[in-house]
């Protein structure tokens, strides 16, 4: 058991990479074998993360212990270690990553028709990068995984992107944007070492970074923050996102929205918060402000979209704004040591932000899958050509309804809890900003209902309006066909999660709540 516990994270992280090497060695004509292998191989991390979640909840959750740690010297001369570990904040996200990876592979197996081998290879590699970020406890290791995730995504967007959406432009934009942020983060990481003599996140946090050099602390804070904010993405660093999401193949969008965006938020909570609590307290309001702008702005821009995928992409900007608002509120609360209730609100805001990370992952993941479903049939995403699908494809309609309403934060579905906790925290700390953010909720409802549901599903279905229908397998069809089995298998686990977590978020919340209480109480500055 101890052996398993000390190696499980390493296994989770590197198994996908091993898988991609194995795929690389397979002959590219054997597409079926490649697909089957990749899917089943990705199930292993899924099982491991499931076990991890259960084991963590039973044994380590109380006090949010940093469990499953493994630490080997990597570049001992500068104290860079291979140091991994997981706590209440990362365990659920690991599960989310594993789940979306498996679903993405499974879905792609049916819809990816060109350059199959490369796709599956890169997709598995991507998983390694994402897992890695969530378990890294060493800044350099963190950075390495952070960047590793970038490369496969670049290819996924560029190669399998829809040619109409300028995928090459989107891919390069995505890469450069993220790189531009992260390279400055690297400088700041070095700064952390120069200040504390260690790259270990936990050690550095314990020692405090740039305690006597406020200017450096401030610069480092912003360098980290901008890197994370670009990834999140927070207004005004979001413009890569609509392009990247729109251009990416379905599974790519799912991973991008479901996991990659979370890396930024996770980075803020794991790295920025623990290393620079003082600066966080000082600048938290800016973070919160950006979050609020993101919420409202993203929602309005979504409302103006007529391209379904771009709409959902912009909705991510809005939804990630909640995370930023929550995180910013946490920061502001750090500077309110004497205000009664502020710390409680901070814990709520932290919970809200982390819940949103998970919830947005499953919801927007599902939404992007749903875009894929209709796109594979209609070969367009222009909302103007649809209408009345509710009567024609009821299963698709029902699935979209769940995802859509979860996305607009309907109580009883997953998204609500994230919003509720975020606002519960934010109202206790930055009420003015929170009030503005509330506008976003209304606009969100407007674009989901008005743009998505109404345009796609309501009204009378008119076959004359669009005549390029095929089945999902590419055969000619007179109209849309309902979801195929594989699409149901892909989507329904997510829908089930939305409903279950909407009704009973407690198991998930237990993780995040322990994390938030303990992380917040451990901050000192």
């Amino acid at each position, binding site marked *: 058991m101890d052996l398993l516990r000390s190696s499980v994270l390493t296994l989770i992280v590197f198994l996908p990479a091993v898988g991609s090497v194995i795929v690389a060695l397979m002959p590219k004509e054997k597409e079926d074998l490649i697909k089957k292998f990749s899917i089943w191989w990705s199930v292993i991390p899924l099982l491991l993360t499931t076990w991890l979640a259960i084991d963590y909840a039973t044994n380590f959750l109380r006090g949010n212990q940093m469990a499953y740690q493994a630490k080997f010297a990597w570049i001992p001369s500068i104290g860079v270690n291979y140091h991994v570990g997981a706590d209440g904040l990362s365990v659920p996200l690991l599960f989310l990553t594993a789940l979306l990876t498996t679903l993405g592979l499974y879905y792609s197996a049916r819809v990816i028709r060109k350059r199959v081998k490369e796709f599956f290879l890169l997709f598995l590699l991507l998983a390694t990068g994402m897992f890695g970020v969530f378990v890294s406890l060493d800044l350099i290791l963190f950075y390495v995984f952070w960047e590793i995730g970038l490369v496969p995504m670049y290819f996924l967007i560029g190669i399998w992107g829809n040619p109409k959406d300028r995928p090459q432009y989107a891919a390069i*934009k995505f890469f450069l*944007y993220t790189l531009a942020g992260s390279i400055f983060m690297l400088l700041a990481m070095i700064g952390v070492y120069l200040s504390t003599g260690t790259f270990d996140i936990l050690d550095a946090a314990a020692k405090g970074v740039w305690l006597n050099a406020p200017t450096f602390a401030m610069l480092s804070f912003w360098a980290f923050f901008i890197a994370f904010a670009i990834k999140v993405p927070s207004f*005004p660093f*979001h*413009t*890569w996102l609509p392009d990247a999401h729109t251009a990416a193949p379905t599974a790519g969008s799912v991973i991008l929205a479901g996991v990659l965006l979370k890396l930024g938020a996770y980075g803020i909570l794991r790295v920025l918060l623990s290393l620079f609590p003082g600066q966080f307290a000082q600048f938290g309001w800016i973070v919160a402000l950006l979050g609020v702008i993101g919420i409202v*702005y993203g929602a*309005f*821009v*979504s*409302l*103006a*979209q007529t391209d379904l995928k771009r709409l959902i992409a912009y909705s991510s900007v809005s939804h990630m704004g909640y995370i930023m608002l929550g995180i910013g509120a946490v920061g502001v609360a750090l500077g309110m040591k004497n205000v009664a*209730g502020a*710390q*409680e*609100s901070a*814990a*709520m805001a932290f*919970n809200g932000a982390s819940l949103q990370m998970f919830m947005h992952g499953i919801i927007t993941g599902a939404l992007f899958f749903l875009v894929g479903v209709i796109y594979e049939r209609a070969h367009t995403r222009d909302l103007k050509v649809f209408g*009345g699908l*509710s*009567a024609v494809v*009821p299963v698709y309609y*029902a699935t979209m309804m769940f995802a859509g*309403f979860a996305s607009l934060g*309907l*109580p*009883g579905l997953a998204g*609500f809890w994230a919003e*509720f*906790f975020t*606002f*519960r925290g934010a*109202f*206790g700390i930055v009420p003015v900003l*929170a*009030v503005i953010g*509330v506008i976003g*909720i*209304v*606009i969100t*409802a*407007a*674009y989901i*209902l*008005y743009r998505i549901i*109404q345009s796609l*599903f*309501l*009204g*009378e*279905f008119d076959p004359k309006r669009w005549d390029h229908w095929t089945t999902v397998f590419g055969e000619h069809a007179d109209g849309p066909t309902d979801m195929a089995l594989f699409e149901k298998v892909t989507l329904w686990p997510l829908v089930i999660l939305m409903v279950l977590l909407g009704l009973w978020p*407690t198991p998930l*919340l*237990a993780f995040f*709540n*322990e994390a*938030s*209480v303990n992380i917040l109480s451990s901050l000192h500055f």
Partner: protein
Amino acid sequence: MNYPSVFNLTWLIPLPTALAFFAIILFANPKKRLSSNIAVGAVILAWIMSWAVAIVFFLNPELTEHPFDLNAPWLPMGTITFHMGVAVDAVTAGMLFMVGFVLTMIFIYSTGYMSFPGHLDPAKYPDAAKEGLDPRYSRFFAYISLFATGMLGLVVANNLLMLFIFWEIMGLCSYLLIGFWFDKSYPDPKQITPKQAGLKAFLTTRVGDVLFMMGLIFLFIHAGDLNFQAIFGNQEFLHELSTSTVNLPFFGAVTWAGLISMLIFWGAIGKSAQFPLHVWLPDAMEGPTPVSALIHAATMVSAGVYLIVRMSPLFSAAAHGGSGVMMFVAFIGAFTALFAATIAVAQKDIKKVLAYSTISQLGYMFAALGIGAWVAAIIHLLIHAFFKSLLFMASGSVIHGVEHGHHHVHEHGEHGHEGYFDPQDMFNMGGLLKRMPVTGWTFIIGGASLSAFPLITAGFWSKDEILAHAWADGHMAVYWTLAAGAFLTAFYTFRQIFLTFFGSPRTEAAEHAPESVRAMTWPLVALAFFALFGGFVAVPEDFPVIGGLASDFMAKLMEMQGEFYGLHVAPAGFNWTPALISMTLALSGIVVAWLVYGRKPLAAGKPDPLRKPLGPIYTILENKYYFDEFYHLVAVRPTLWLAQFFFLFDRNVIDRIVNWVGALGRWLAAALRRWIDEFIIDAAVNGAGLVTTWTGAVVRLIQTGQAQNYLLILLLSVVVLLLLIPLK
């Protein structure tokens, strides 16, 4: 405290319908009859449990002192754990009694009502047409099952958060059901379609809901909990909340209790369609009629009232703290009561009239709450639910009949109807009492109850209670506003009755309208019973003659419950003056209606006789004071415009920033080479007087390909480096 063990069932009450919902959407939905059977079975189960709980509570009035409260740990929040749970007090019991019953009636009614709809082309849905059922019959039952879950859950919830959740689930169902016939469209592009109505309903109530959520969150922040009993049992806390203030822009210092109450009240305004968020409810009539009956009359819209009833201790604390929130509630309620009633006068759609009457009646309840007539509000809420659902269901039956008649006419080809026929237009009806006697008489009973026909209808007793309170407590403005509303209510109700049921049929369709099936008529009868006699649970004790005969146990029960929550609601007592005034007004409304519509039945194709005398006022009323247009102008269009603006801003400004940086880089590169070429080398050469054949190099990069250029730069670089030395 030992509670009757039946209370342990409480948490199960919302469950059967929830299970029915999932069962239908997941498994049963291809089989229409099976789906409706599941739904009806589930709701009957819920009904039985609700009544069991309610009646047991009624039998044990002492429980008002110790309301039942059952908790289970739910959400870890920081260092505390939030509990979920159910509670039963008198209000809950009353609501359960009403909701369980009305739900069941409407479910049963729906099995008959949801036949194949007239606006669909049978050729497109051959299977459904053959069965004679709506193609999305199963879906309908799934939705209303989910709705039932929402309503029942809302009633039994013991904390504001759960209440909010169920509140929103109802909002969802309302949206889904209003837009149930999403493929319906009208020849008149201005006429709102079901899909638009659903959207409008959801978004309008959403505005109220977020304000509600803000109030909820503020309350949570201050109380650390949202459990009703925990909050309202803590007088100290309420006191503190009503004395601590917060500074708001424009409003100055307000108490926290006032602010929170106000925010929560906005939730109720949205949900209960009070002015100024009333616009969605009339359009919600685009939904199938059972939906209108259920959601937009009996249950969901009155949930707003229920919310304020629940939160009354907070409102009253706020009022004690000097906040004007109660007055605001009273004002909104009274104003809406009159305002909506005026609009109802000029509507021709049978359901729209009822919709405005609903708004108006809800206004009465809010007015009652605003003046502290807590018990009266609750009782009017309960009784209104019965007669209003009755009215809606009866009107549904009428519509159904007219539609069938229309089809009948159509099929037999007696007339080719040119254009569109509106089966809901009262001017297309007339004389239906003969064709549809059960429907007709039950409608008249409901209408009488709504008009507060003295003594024999339930509506009289409940409405009278409110007016009596207003009079007794000296809220004269409220009283007169409501009294004026009462007159109008009687007038438009009987206008409706006369137009629909009396006189002679004004169309072929009306002439051939058949009575509805028994699944639809029986619930009407059952509800009519309560519409007539339900009021006898609240007859004032000192009312002459009847006061002694009837019981006022409900009012008593609620009073006790109010005491428990610190609401001191003394019975207003009976007073002849207001009672007579209101009776007179109600009766005169009926009489005026008879004079205008009943005495001389309207002939086919004639305009509304009111149009002429009222002139432009009629047009204004007909157009609902142009509120839709106004909101379109100030809210919808700016929002869409803003969205477009932000989008263009994003594309053209924010996104371009990166491009600008890129362009700057390119420009720098170009400038670099131009600079070096033109200014250093070229200018130098110019200076030396040699420009002749250098032109080729101008366009080139610094990398001219000329080795000696390179060397010159090498030399110049060394010179520059050497120059640095003395400059140092």
